[in-house]
């Protein structure tokens, strides 16, 4: 019987992604500004009520953002990236990288789509790890979702080798 030997080197994560949807009681242009202006970003960025320390955002194609925040546990984190697509008030695409990057060393990609709905805006948010520009998978969490995505990813990567 064989057993698993843990890999000697740290593997980069297989391409995968996270999608979240929020219905927001504000019109798309207001949500878009909250996403793309330093004043807006300072008010919500981060996983808890710790402060945003630096918020820079030049929301035009090719422009950059940089945001540094402190969590309530005192730890500070900084991420930056470049805007790839800026279509006010409906779509925003940017690259993403953590400063330091111990936990997630690679570049990833953030996509935000805003759709007007009667009560305001439906925001669809996707953060994708990239193994390459094409090598992206879609949302869901959990094992079976991740498995299905790995399959699709594999099929995309190998193309007709499988068929």
């Amino acid at each position, binding site marked *: 019987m064989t057993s698993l030997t843990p890999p000697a080197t740290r*593997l980069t994560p297989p391409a995968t992604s996270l999608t979240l949807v*929020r219905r927001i009681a504000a019109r798309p242009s207001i949500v878009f500004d909250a996403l793309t202006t330093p004043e807006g970003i300072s008010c919500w960025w981060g996983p808890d009520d710790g402060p945003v320390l630096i918020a820079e955002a030049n929301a035009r194609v090719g422009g950059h953002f940089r945001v540094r925040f402190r969590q309530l546990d005192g730890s500070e984190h900084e991420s930056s990236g470049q805007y790839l697509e800026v279509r006010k008030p409906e779509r925003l695409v940017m690259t993403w990288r953590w400063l330091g990057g111990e936990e997630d060393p690679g570049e990833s990609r953030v996509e935000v789509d805003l759709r007007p709905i009667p009560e305001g805006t439906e925001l669809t948010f996707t953060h994708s790890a990239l193994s390459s520009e094409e090598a992206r998978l879609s949302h869901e*969490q959990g094992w079976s979702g991740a498995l299905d995505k790995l399959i699709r990813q594999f099929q995309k990567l190998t193309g007709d080798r499988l068929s």
Partner: protein
Amino acid sequence: MVNYQARLDRTFAALVDPTRRAILARLERAGSATVSELASPFAIKLPAIMKHLDVLDEAGLIARSKAGRTVTVRLSPEPMREAMAWLRRYERFWSASLDRLAAYAKSREAAARAKEAAVKAAKGRSSNRD
């Protein structure tokens, strides 16, 4: 890098077969299972199941251990683990951030409406005077 690619290919090749995915899904629910337990839902013979298990084992997705005559299989999802850790990290970060974004945008919307109402009221007053 070549090793990584080869390993990834093995993982994907292992995952592409529906029987092997069903085995993994079962192990995910149950934690571990014996080979005969794994074989029971499938209309295929034990040797075929063993072949599938070999493929999953080579891909590093399962580990097998033997106690007497019983082989126990458990999930060993190292190739998946990093992806799941990645997902959980960003899920925490973005879920909280987007909730805060929603609350912030809602307050901006309220402010914008109050301002619009004030402008409209002012216009109304000025047109009344005309």
